[in-house]
């Protein structure tokens, strides 16, 4: 098991290095424009000619590409990657936005996992009946509704017109736990809706497949109650693929993937930082958030693999 972990971790590090290189190619090399053009892009929309020249030199755009890559990595990992538009170091900003994104992800994750499983199990055990069809329709509506639309509608009717919920913004957990919760309810639900529908559909299919497995018939032949069979023999194996999905989705939201939800509710999380940077053509933060997001996904996929090995002994290395 330890060897498996080390091997998997080593692989993850390689993937992260590859990601940094791809980011470098996409943002620095691929757009072209020569050393001056590249420096202008990095320096931002309203940069003075002096700044552009300084950037060109400091980032090594007048030197070979491996020097440029090296200098970029140096900046990335020493918090010297700075947005020239706002003068704020990218890592500091991400660090500051992290609590909002983290709060959003945790709450929404709990909601979508719980209800996704509930929806999947309910529609699977009543497969073909009215309740299953009803749930299916609701799930499809949930999957099809664009987050930005649902978010704006919810905010407009529930927060601005009816004032049932606060109108956006993030309140820190340490500052006021009650307000923190109150402010996050709407974003959590809006973000979770899509995932609930999707997870419910996937789990329903898994359960219906598993019910026909021979070992479920064996469990029946043992004389176990249907409830126990469902919990121990059907659900346990059906949930394994859900673990994978959850790990990766969780990581991607944590890595700033909930751009729309964060922006609609003005949470000032990492996703919104990415959105604002894109609006301003501010490249350093975009690069930073991209890499940071990728690292999260890689890290969580390692966790998923470990948990997977725990859940399914067949892939456990011996």
């Amino acid at each position, binding site marked *: 098991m330890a060897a498996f972990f080390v091997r998997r971790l080593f692989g993850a590090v390689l993937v992260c290095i590859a990601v940094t290189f791809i980011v470098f190619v996409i943002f620095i090399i691929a757009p072209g424009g020569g050393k001056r053009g590249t420096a202008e892009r990095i320096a931002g929309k309203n940069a003075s000619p002096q700044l552009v020249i300084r950037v060109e030199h400091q980032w090594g755009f007048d030197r070979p590409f491996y020097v440029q890559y090296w200098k970029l990595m140096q900046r990335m990992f020493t918090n010297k990657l700075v947005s020239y538009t706002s003068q704020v170091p990218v890592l500091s900003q991400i660090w500051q936005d992290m609590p909002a994104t983290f709060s959003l992800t945790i709450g929404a994750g709990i909601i979508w996992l719980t209800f996704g499983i509930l929806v999947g199990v309910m529609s699977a055990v009543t497969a073909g009946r009215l309740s299953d069809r009803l749930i299916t329709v609701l799930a499809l509506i949930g999957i099809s509704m664009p987050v930005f639309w649902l978010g704006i509608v919810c905010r407009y009717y529930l927060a601005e017109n009816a004032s049932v919920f606060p109108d956006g913004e993030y309140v820190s957990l340490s500052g006021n736990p009650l307000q923190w919760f109150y402010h996050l309810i709407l974003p959590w639900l809006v973000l979770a809706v899509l995932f609930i529908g999707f997870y419910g559909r996937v789990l329903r299919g898994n359960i219906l497949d598993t019910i026909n*497995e*021979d*070992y479920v*018939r*064996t*469990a*029946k*032949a*043992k*004389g*176990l*109650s*249907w409830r126990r069979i469902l919990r*121990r*023999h059907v659900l*346990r*194996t059906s949930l394994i693929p859900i673990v994978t999905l959850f790990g990766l989705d969780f990581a991607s939201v944590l890595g700033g993937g909930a751009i729309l939800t964060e922006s609609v509710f003005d949470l000032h999380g990492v996703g919104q930082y990415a959105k604002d940077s894109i609006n301003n053509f501010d490249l350093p933060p975009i690069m930073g958030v991209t890499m940071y997001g990728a690292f999260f996904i890689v890290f969580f996929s390692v966790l998923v693999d470990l948990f997977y090995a725990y*859940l*399914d*002994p*067949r892939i456990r290395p011996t």
Partner: protein
Amino acid sequence: MADRLLEVKDLSVSFATEDGVVRAVDGVSFELDRGKVIGIVGESGSGKSVTAMTIMGLTRDVNARFGGEVVYQGRNLLEISDTEMQNFRGNEIGMIFQDPMTSLNPVYRIGEQIVEAIQAHERVDKRNAHRRAVELLRQVGIPNPESRVDDFPHQFSGGMRQRAMIAMALSCNPSILIADEPTTALDVTIQAQIIELIAQLKDDFNSAVIMITHDLGVVADIADEILVMYAGRVVERGATRDLFYDPQMPYTWGLLGSIPRLDRPRPERLHTITGSPPSLITLPPGCKFRPRCPHAFEKCSEEPALENRVETPGHLDRCWLDVGYKRAHREESISGGTSEAA
């Protein structure tokens, strides 16, 4: 007086499907006494597995319709509630299945799965149940059961998994063990061991066995009585000896002919029964085997009843052919048409 455990009376099972009603089992009757082994033989779709699963209550479904009776301990198992049926499953009637590779849950240890079966029916704490699981594994011939009990199914070979399945099926000491093609997925050498094990455990546990197979050779040694099924019906029934030495139904001849044998001249190709079994939705009129039967004549358009047509009592068949004619002509079907040339 024989200790009668199970009586199946005129059992019929049909399933409503989108294509029509599938009449999977039609009018099957047999009795099972303690200490006996009954073999149910037939090809895929003959209704042998559905018969077994129905006894276990595993075919219960909104689309399934049952007729007749399955009487166990004076109660009709077709009529009791699902919860009551749970107490019979595993506890009174144990079952093992065809494919031991997929019949055990891959994510639980062998021991856990046996413990689960024990605890489903008895108030035993985990430690004692675990100890019993080890003992059961020893009884079914798993070497070093103290440590293998904590293995996962994928760490067992096919034969060992089937042994573990048998241990699980016997864990609550059921009166009846139903074995649904228990050796089909195993190597030939392992097959013999498993059959022998089942026969021996039947005596150790003082139970009875229903052995389902498509291979007459599998039940030849251990069955006391054999039912040959075709298209949901019993087409021949008799003591094992009678069935092997005086088979009355051309379908049985075909089955006998398709067993490879060392004591006869080798035909170029193993005998096969031409054609395929009829659709259970639209059955042919008359004898169901008629379309594939080389000996069919006019009378076969009417379905023969399952009755005694030979001197031996208890040997029943569904065939209109004259007994003398059959005894004269069956040899070519049984030993294969081309064998004379070899």
